[in-house]
């Protein structure tokens, strides 16, 4: 049995089989899993915001889609993963509260998911599967021995990507 490594909000963790990476209670945040199926090495990032360009210098890069993904890729390559074998699975990006006259902050989940897709494309990583949107929270778990990305919800059942 491997260890279960917890990924907090605005956090990146990488690991090797038989470990498991888990992040609890994602709302409009997006959980990005990348995985090398041969080396059984992967990473999980829990991003909150789409774009680091409007942030101040010196902030936690794991918070943003555009900065977290390159760091996570570098970290899994350091563990021995091979770039061209990496595939990605993403989940989250929901809209928890609904208001009439939705402003940018309320649509943040959608914008996060879009920014993640763009950043993955830029890094040349294939997006293999996704479970995004809706109005409910998700807990995500990347099983490093199999590459299965498990998604748990309260009312909407569980899924495996």
């Amino acid at each position, binding site marked *: 049995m491997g260890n279960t490594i917890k990924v907090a909000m605005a956090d990146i963790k990488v690991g090797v089989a038989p470990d498991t990476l888990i992040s609890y209670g994602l709302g409009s945040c997006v959980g990005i899993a990348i995985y090398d199926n041969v080396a059984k090495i992967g990473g999980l990032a829990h991003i909150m*915001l789409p774009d680091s360009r409007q942030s101040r210098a010196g902030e936690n890069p794991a918070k943003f889609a555009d900065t977290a993904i390159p760091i996570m890729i570098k970290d899994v390559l350091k563990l021995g993963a091979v770039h061209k074998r990496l595939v990605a699975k993403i989940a989250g990006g929901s809209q928890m509260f609904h208001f009439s006259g939705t402003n940018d902050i309320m649509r943040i989940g959608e914008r996060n998911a879009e920014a993640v897709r763009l950043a993955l494309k830029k890094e040349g990583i294939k997006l293999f599967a996704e479970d995004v949107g809706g109005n409910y929270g998700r807990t995500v778990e990347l099983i490093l021995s199999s590459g299965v990305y498990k998604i748990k919800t309260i009312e909407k059942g569980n899924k495996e990507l």
Partner: protein
Amino acid sequence: MLSDGEFTQLNALQLDALREIGNVGAGNAATALSQLINKKINMSVPKVSVAPIGDVPDLVGGPETLVAGVFLRVFGQAPSSILFLLPHDSAFALVDTLMHRTTDRTDYEITEMEESALKEIGNILSGAYLNALAHFTQITLLPSIPSLAIDMAGAILSIILIQLGQVGDYALVIETEFSANTENDDVRGHFFLIPDPGSLSIILEAIGVKENG
């Protein structure tokens, strides 16, 4: 605008002042809630914490805890967010008490009527809280209409944390815990006032404790 550094450097006087704001606001809200359900409400001394954003879900029992959250935006001179979080069981006990009935629940289904009741409770509490706060600070504060979600605490909190996350890595949280004994179940709730990043200095200035030192 206060940066993270200034957040973490709040002095004892400023923390006391913020605690007092929480006290005045929550006292008023507790009175409103007490009148609504005709029960005595116990209220904790407000906690003022400056927490790394990732740690905030732990304040309510972890990111996966099932909760009901009523969320309101506060407009005016010091834009903020208000979140009234109740454990799932408490939310239903509160609604049942309000509707003068007893029920045994086993599922997460919520009717439109119950949803509306919870929102209204959030509305009344926030109104009372903000009234006291506006009186105390002479700042105009207007609540938006309430919105409700029943889900994981982390997912519900994320909307506020994301807003704060755009400018910093820390959150200032003014939190009060309520409890009441009802026929149905004990009701517990957490009331959060989370000032937007620029709003904290406006509030501190309004109550005359802006200067550091």
